[in-house]
């Protein structure tokens, strides 16, 4: 077990190194430095002299490999430097102050989509080909094909513009939560519903369930003792990464509803060529999601006695 975790941790480290290299390389392939992009936006030219001073201030005049090493050394100490788009704050400060919004949105979404996805999945597995099964299929097709930002816009149109029930943006209370959570739930509902349904159906077809039925156990007892326990364990494997993906925020939903989370800041960072912010976000996201996969695998092994991570014969 310890060896397995070590192997996986090494893999995680490797992925992070590669990801940081790719990000770093890509960011430096960008035509025009960060100041050009912003100058262009304000339609003004920066004198060469000032540009050089700015580049020196932010370390952009060093050789690339030196910049990378510097970046790695600082990243290990969780020091990503100052944001270029918001020069008064460090990247870490931005993370500290803004991430809670993303986490809140993510957890609300997770709670909502777990109820809906699991509920629909279980209901359609218990009553295959009933109206609820068809409804479940329709919901999953909807979630699959409608981009979250399209859904968000349509929600805003109906509930804010036409009906005037909900605010179009901001994050000041439960009324503000409704539409972002709905729009953010498409992917998780889809995944949870599909996974639960197929996993439940497999469990219900299994030999031990048929045996339990033959023994004359009540339907309720069969469901709770035999089906749920076996069917919901595999759902865990998708639950972990899903939760990780959610608490890291969303580009679309956060910027559409002007929720000041990490996703919102990332989109801003992209538009402003904010290297430190972009690289930090990419690294943090990859790390969070990869760690979630690792934890899920370990947790899965602990819950399911049949899974052994180390194959020793």
């Amino acid at each position: 077990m310890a060896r397995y975790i070590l192997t996986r941790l090494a893999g995680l480290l490797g992925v992070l190194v590669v990801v940081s290299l790719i990000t770093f390389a890509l960011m430096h392939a960008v035509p025009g430095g960060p100041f050009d992009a912003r100058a262009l936006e304000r339609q003004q030219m920066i004198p060469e002299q000032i540009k050089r001073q700015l580049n020196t201030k932010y370390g952009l005049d060093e050789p690339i490999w030196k910049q990378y090493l510097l970046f790695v050394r600082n990243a290990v100490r969780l020091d990503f430097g100052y944001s270029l788009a918001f020069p008064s704050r460090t990247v870490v400060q931005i993370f500290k102050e803004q991430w809670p919004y993303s986490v809140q949105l993510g957890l609300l979404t997770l709670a909502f989509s777990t109820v809906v996805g699991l509920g629909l999945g279980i209901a359609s597995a218990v009553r295959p080909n009933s109206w609820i099964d068809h409804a479940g299929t329709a919901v999953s097709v909807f979630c699959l094909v409608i981009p979250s930002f399209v859904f968000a816009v349509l929600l805003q149109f109906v509930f804010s513009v036409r009906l005037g029930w909900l605010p179009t943006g901001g994050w000041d209370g439960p009324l503000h939560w409704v539409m972002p959570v709905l729009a953010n739930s498409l992917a998780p509902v889809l995944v949870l519903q599909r996974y639960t349904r197929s996993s439940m159906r497999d469990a219900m077809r299994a030999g031990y369930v048929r045996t339990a039925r033959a023994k004359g156990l009540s339907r309720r007892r069969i469901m709770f003792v035999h089906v749920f326990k076996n069917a919901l364990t595999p759902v865990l494997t998708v639950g972990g990464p899903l939760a990780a993906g959610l608490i890291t925020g969303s580009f679309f939903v956060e910027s559409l509803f002007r929720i000041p989370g990490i996703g919102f800041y990332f989109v801003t960072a992209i538009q402003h060529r904010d290297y430190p912010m972009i690289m930090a976000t990419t690294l943090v996201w990859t790390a969070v999601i990869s760690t979630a996969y690792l934890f899920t695998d370990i947790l899965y092994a602990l819950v399911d006695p049949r899974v052994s991570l180390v194959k020793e014969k």
Partner: protein
Amino acid sequence: MSAPQSDETLLETIGLTKSFTTRRASFGGKRVEHVAVNRVSLSVREGETLGLVGESGCGKTTLGLTVMRLYEPSGGRIVFAGQDITRLAGRALKPVRRQMQMVFQDPFASLDPRLTVEQIIGEPLVIHGTGTRAERATAVESLLERVGLGADDMHRYPSEFSGGQQQRIGIARALALRPRLLICDEPVSALDVSVQAQILNLLRDLQDEFRLAYLFISHNIAVTAFMSRRIGVMYLGRVVETGASRQIVNAPRHPYTRALVAAVPEPDPSRRVDESGVRGDVADLAGRPTGCSFRTRCPLAESRCETEEPQLRRVDKGHEVACHFA
């Protein structure tokens, strides 16, 4: 028995060995070696059938695939029609392949579901560039008729046929190149019992007509005895007894062969006594016992069997057994 015999040896294996190495799943795992075929020496004469029996996992299929050069031999030699083909490769192997074909256990799995029967049976002809398109079609037609199917089946797909018919298609494909040796790997064990006899009879008829030699692999000693003049019995990759079919069935000498013979269903219940005393299951290839590999299940086993591996030795005319007590 059926075909005219000659003494000319067509296929010979000399100490043929095939082993597989697998790596343990975890990081930096050890390599584990499994010897599936262990120093096997056999010979098949022109126009003759050599039967090969043993339980599943004894290495008989691996032996067939190694002889076909679909697996790389790990040791020993394969001699076909006087030519050592153990290390032949690519172009040099192609003419040998014409003379040696295979019939597989699962007829459906052995036919590409996306090809028509014409394409399937014609495939070997295409590979060897035989004839024009029209000539190949005629050849396929006559092959189909020869194995008991009709010309109107040419444009159908394998899934439209029954298991027995699929196996006929497989046999027709194997015959397309007019081979001298056919390796039949459990050709009837996937079929219904009623169909098995038809396919076995077809194989025997074809043997007479094309002067084919068969290496007939089966787990069923009764079927093997019906088909073969001589039989080899395999256990855990080793040949433990060879002899004429009569000798093997009527006077088995190895305790394992006795168990196989005793396991054949006997219509008269008063005669159904299994007195072989064999117990347990086939040992794991990786955990092969020292000495005689059969000793863990053998009723006769003594301390000598633990240390000394019995070699094949002659006990009668053409009858060899690898057991200290035979």
